[in-house]
């Protein structure tokens, strides 16, 4: 709202994912690969393995062309992209961590110079001096990870920085160390995987086998190390946040599953490579690379998803509203917008009043400034698709907007704005779908469309534990949902829908629940 919103029709989030998803796969290689180069050079010289040394020269070229060119440009690319999509968060992070970025830049500068000289020095320098450049490269690259790790982890777990606003407190935040170990293991694992790619095209099968075994020695233990480091990492993430990846938020849960599964597949493929090193083919090497890319990006998605609805946890929402009022917030907080309204707070909107004629246009503008950081109308995380699935009528949509913050373990920021603004947003959202009336008798469908965003198909969910089992009493209690729990959206179901929902509810309840919630005979008698 403070900044204009870049309207990316296919989804701003998708663009960041594309840029960052490939960058991390190269940037972690840039760290681990540096250590790999210098240790492999040592090993080759010690063993007088000239063939290995020759391969390493070619591998260095591949390494430099990939990391110095694509790695560096795409790294700047992430920065470009987040500045376009989340300027407020970028501005916050720059002001909080500018000296951290500046320190990283120093390491980056040393790193790039060392990489170029290491490549150019293959035919010119003594092995000792050549390795000196290799070591400088590796330590500078690792140091840049050490720095950037502090800023990335800060976004998920700012910890007590939120109270004290001190650089080092934010930097060495609760997930700093597990993340550093976790990412370091990824770096080393990737060094081995990338080695397979350049080794796979070798004609000398003995040499290929030596490199594949050597690469596997880097990758396999590192993949195993990811398990304890990952466990440590998860333990340091506040449990309530990580619940998102354990069922409460579909995307985070899927990515968590994918991350571990693809990690396991990578491990199995590497074992296969280890046992048949002479047969390593380029396609197989690329498959391993792609599976590892999938595993790594899934992990990054989980990290990003459990952080939602925040860019900086408990500080700044994805839609650039601050979680709490503070000096200098410009009034860009949920509370303030609820009072003053979006139309009188946001700078970059064209409409300042709501009339019957412009209601939908205003709704569209509110959608742009409040929702479009994550959603699109029709594409990535498209509202059209979500609404077609849910089939909410205008009243339900309006009611649901009041309960956004409860959905999927609180993955969304609350709607911020006045009641007429919420109506305008609902009116716009309703233009994105065509409603087919829900059959009143399908309780399961009613549950899925209206309840499953916040409730779970789990016996312990309040949906099953707190509603009485007597069909009529239960159906009656659904007349006014806010009387069950004040924060619930005030959805109005008609009589047949309520009855069908209760029927479905009772079929899903565990038997014990039935007994528990049945009115006791004594109570019955008392009445």
């Amino acid at each position, binding site marked *: 709202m403070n900044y204009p919103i870049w309207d990316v029709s296919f989804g701003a989030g998708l663009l960041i994912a594309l840029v960052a998803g490939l960058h991390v796969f190269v940037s972690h290689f840039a760290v681990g690969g540096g250590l790999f180069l210098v240790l492999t050079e040592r090993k080759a010289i010690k063993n007088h393995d000239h*063939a290995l040394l020759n391969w390493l020269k070619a591998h260095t070229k591949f390494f430099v062309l990939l990391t110095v060119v694509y790695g560096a440009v795409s790294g700047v690319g992430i920065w470009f992209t987040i500045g*376009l999509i989340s300027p*407020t968060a970028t*501005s*916050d992070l720059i002001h909080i961590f500018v*000296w951290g970025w500046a*320190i990283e830049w120093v390491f*980056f*500068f040393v790193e790039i110079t060392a990489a170029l000289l290491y490549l150019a020095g293959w035919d*010119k320098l003594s092995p000792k001096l050549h390795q000196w450049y290799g070591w400088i490269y590796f330590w500078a690259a690792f140091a840049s990870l050490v720095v950037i790790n502090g800023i990335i982890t800060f976004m998920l777990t700012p910890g007590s920085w939120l109270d004290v606003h001190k650089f080092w407190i934010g930097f060495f935040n609760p997930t700093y160390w597990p993340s550093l170990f976790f990412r370091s293991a990824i770096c080393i694992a990737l060094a081995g995987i990338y080695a397979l790619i350049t080794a796979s095209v070798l004609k000398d099968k003995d040499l290929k086998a030596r490199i594949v075994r050597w690469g596997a020695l880097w990758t396999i233990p590192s993949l195993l190390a990811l398990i304890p480091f990952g466990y440590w990492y998860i333990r340091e993430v506040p449990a309530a946040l990580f619940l998102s990846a354990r069922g409460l938020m579909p995307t985070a849960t899927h990515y968590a599953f994918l991350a571990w599964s693809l990690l396991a597949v990578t491990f199995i493929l590497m074992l296969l490579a280890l046992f048949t090193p002479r047969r390593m083919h380029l396609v197989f090497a690329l498959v391993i690379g792609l599976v590892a890319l999938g595993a790594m990006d899934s992990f990054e998605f989980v990290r990003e998803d459990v952080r939602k609805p925040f860019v900086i946890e408990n500080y700044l929402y994805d839609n650039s509203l601050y979680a709490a009022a503070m000096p200098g917030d410009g009034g860009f907080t949920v509370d303030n917008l609820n009072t003053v309204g979006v139309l009188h707070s946001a700078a970059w909107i064209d409409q300042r009043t709501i009339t019957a004629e412009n209601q939908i246009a205003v709704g569209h503008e509110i959608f742009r400034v409040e929702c479009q950081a994550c959603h699109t109308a029709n594409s990535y995380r498209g509202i059209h698709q979500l609404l077609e699935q849910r089939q909410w009528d205008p009243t339900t949509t309006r009611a649901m907007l009041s309960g956004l913050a409860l959905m999927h373990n609180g993955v969304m920021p609350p709607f911020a704005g006045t009641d007429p603004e919420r109506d305008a947003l609902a009116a716009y959202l309703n233009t994105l779908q065509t409603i087919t009336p829900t059959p009143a008798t399908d309780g399961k469908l009613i549950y899925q469309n209206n309840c499953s965003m916040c409730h779970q198909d789990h016996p312990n969910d309040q949906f099953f534990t707190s509603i009485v089992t007597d069909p009529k009493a239960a159906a009656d209690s659904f007349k006014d949902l806010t009387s069950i729990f004040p924060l619930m959206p005030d959805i109005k179901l008609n009589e047949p829908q309520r009855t069908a929902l209760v029927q479905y509810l009772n079929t899903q309840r565990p038997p014990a629940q039935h007994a528990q919630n049945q009115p006791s005979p004594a109570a019955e008698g008392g009445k």
Partner: protein
Amino acid sequence: MIDPSIVPIVDPNPLPAPYWLFKLLLLVTFTLHIIAMNFMLGGAFLAVVARFTSKGKEFRNRIFLDLAKKVPVFLAATITIGIAPLLFVQAIYGQYFYTSTILIAWPWFLILVLLCIAYYGFYYVVYNGQRRPGPAGIVLLVSLTFVLIVGFIQSNNVTLMQTPAHWAAKYFASPTGWSNNLSDPTLIPRYLHFVTSAIAVGGMLLVLLALARWKSDREYATYLFQYGGKSFMYATMAQFIIGTWFLVTIPRNLRMIFMGDNPLASVLFIIGILGTIAAIFLMSNAIRKQNIRVAAYGVSGLLAVVIITMIIMRDILRDAYLEPYFHPHQFAVKTQWAVLPVFLVLFLAGVGLWLLMLKRYGLFSGNKPPLADTTPTANAAAETEVELVH
């Protein structure tokens, strides 16, 4: 003028050091970035010209190969050094920078794609220039075109960033990030001013290459000197026309800062013009007298002075454009004493290590090929090849 309230407010986090420190770091690192960029762009430009005029001229082909080899290194330096001003400009001009980039978001994003392709193109030429000069020339031309487009997008952004009055109309016409700043009359002359200075610096690069070969290969070095020196002179002379064009397109009230309204800007303007004239005469004289040292050291020195004055003038002009909106005292400042010294120490250590890396590589030891003559048995890989042959 638009409602200034559309200019985003700065975020709640205070500046972590005094404003002047960011400004200083911005200007110093931007100067270094521009110098690297000039070597890259000017080098690539002159390499392309040399390649396509090389028929029957062996030295032109050598110039093409010699320059092409250096271009990726200068591009690496341009990007790597460029990160620092990109950081510091966001620290103090973030409100303007983010907004203008959002308005031109797709072209701005395209920079990454163009840069990546151009970069690989430059490397293609390094590895294939000798064997396949035909395709290499075309690839170099394409890469050069791409970096020229990148520069044009940068100019669009910089001009748009300092004219908030133009923002709202562009954004509300289309929020899809496809705007540009072509309607700004300063855009084209400003862009050409930068490109032409890059060509001049590219000419200076050839003079420096001539100096390095002066003793070992006098004939080629003389050719380089002539070719580079004249490129420098002609490009610099053209600057008088382009610079004047640029100057007259700047709104009058802002233009006057160089003509008395702002004493510092006016003095710098005079130094810049006199320095440029002096550089042309000095170069002309050096070419006539075949005095490579005067050309390489004297003119370079003058050129450095001129570049610095231009960078400072550029900054003063930006602040003049933003004067209705931007005042340094708007920032709350809370210096992060716990980390600023760490940066300064690491920065100095980094520069020291960087110089040591170059020194140990032999880059400061004149014309000698680095260490190759001192460690004939050192290269295990080279040995390998020998052994394999045996």
